[in-house]
């Protein structure tokens, strides 16, 4: 009996040692925050915080290997060099980005859990999928803007959106458009239809789980149109399976100079997917500044710029306050679109 007890005690001791040695890396370690000292005059510097002291988790609320995931992984690789500590990507897909976003929203605002999100924060709120929107977070840096394009099967007879719109008006209910309901691709479809004077009775919207599935459906000619990007559809343009009808951008893309903008064709609609970094509300401004510096330096790195542009995205950096204003603008835009289309 004694032998058993003593062995158990030794075991516990060993365990304690092990636990002690590893506790330094435990995620429960508190981060120093500068003390609020009411007697400090504004000219006195606030205590510099020690951040980061351990790896930072970047939540990408989509599946690994997808367009958004790839962009954030690339940026993280360069940003972590500037930051000084590794940035570890965490994937948590679901609900068009809402599930992962919720996790970050409710996480500790110590700067060790950050979010890689995009306009879904606006669209999911408007659609009622999320009960929060971009202002449940602090904006850090806008990183990239990916212009969206209208894509059809190359066997289709239309060569421009106006031809499609005319055909759809003449044959209501015949054509279909694939999109992820409630997300930017849905708004894209609604925006163009609206600008062209069509309703969703004229062109059926088919819900798919994501961009890849929408593209596959158009490739197989089960659906007629969808939204895509250079990165997701470029190879099919090259192989001749799909064709771009138009791009929803202010000017023509360098990667696709033959594709007209919607504006040129008289359809006033500009839309892209804007990806950026967010942190939970109430995060210390110094942490935000450190993160912003790291990401801005990364976005200035010519190597990274080249890789991003090769994937069909444009580098579009904005600092925290500009990013916030940008989101406010976008929100108003999306609300307008949502209101004009009969749901």
């Amino acid at each position: 009996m004694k032998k058993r007890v003593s062995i158990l005690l030794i075991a516990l001791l060993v365990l304690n040692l092990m636990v002690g040695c590893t506790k330094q890396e435990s995620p429960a370690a508190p981060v120093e925050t500068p003390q609020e000292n009411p007697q400090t005059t504004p000219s006195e510097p606030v205590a510099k915080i020690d951040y980061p002291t351990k790896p930072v988790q970047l939540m990408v609320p989509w599946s690994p290997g997808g367009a958004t995931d790839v962009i954030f992984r690339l940026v993280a690789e360069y940003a972590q060099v500037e930051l000084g500590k590794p940035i570890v990507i965490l994937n948590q897909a679901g609900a068009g980005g809402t599930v992962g976003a919720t996790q970050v929203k409710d996480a500790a605002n110590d700067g060790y859990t950050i979010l890689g999100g995009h306009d879904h924060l606006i669209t999911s709120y408007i659609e009622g999928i999320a009960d929060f929107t971009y202002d449940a977070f602090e904006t850090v840096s806008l990183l990239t803007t990916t212009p969206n394009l209208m894509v059809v099967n190359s066997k289709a007879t239309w060569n421009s959106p106006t031809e499609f719109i005319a055909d759809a008006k003449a044959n209501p209910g015949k054509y279909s458009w694939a999109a992820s309901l409630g997300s930017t691709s849905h708004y894209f479809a609604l925006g163009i239809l609206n600008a062209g004077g069509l309703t969703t009775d004229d062109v059926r919207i088919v819900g798919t789980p994501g961009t890849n599935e929408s593209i596959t459906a158009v490739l197989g000619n089960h659906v007629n149109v969808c939204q895509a990007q250079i990165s997701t559809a470029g190879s099919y343009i090259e192989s001749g399976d799909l064709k771009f009808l138009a791009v929803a951008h202010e000017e023509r893309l360098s990667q696709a100079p033959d594709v007209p903008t919607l504006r040129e064709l008289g359809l006033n609609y500009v839309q892209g997917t804007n990806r950026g970094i967010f942190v939970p509300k109430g995060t210390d401004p110094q942490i935000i500044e450190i993160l912003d510096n790291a990401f801005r330096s990364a976005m200035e790195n010519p190597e990274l710029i080249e890789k991003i542009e090769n994937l069909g995205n444009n580098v579009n950096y904005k600092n925290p306050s500009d990013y916030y204003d940008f989101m406010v603008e976008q929100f108003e835009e999306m609300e307008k679109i949502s209101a004009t289309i009969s749901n």
Partner: protein
Amino acid sequence: MIKDLILGFGMAIFSIVSLLESRNLVSANKWDVFGPDGFPKIVAYILLALSIILIVSSLRKVNPAKNKFSLTKLEVVVLLSIIAYVLLLPVIGFLIATALFILSIQLLLTYNLKKTMISMVITSLVVTGSVYIVFEKFLNVNLP
């Protein structure tokens, strides 16, 4: 048989609950002919039908094969320890909880206490340690 009867009722309740809950779901709208509630409802109805068949058939069976659903004491203890283990995970951390868990289950299940004591302790420590290392270091998983 009683076992089947219980199962049948259990499944029936499950399907009825599902059906009731699906009423809260948004119904089919203009472009979504099926809607989020269509599929679950169909499946729940099928399940309900199947459970009724099961109930009916088990009532009709005159066979009094009354093998009760028996749960030995040891199994109950093991099951409870699993629950305790998971409850303790966030409290005392993965390392301690797992090591203790492995050790205590072994103690429960072994026949020859004295002979195997040392190997049991070693196993607990080694397994816990290696799982921890693999998951934390290689996988960047933050075990509690």
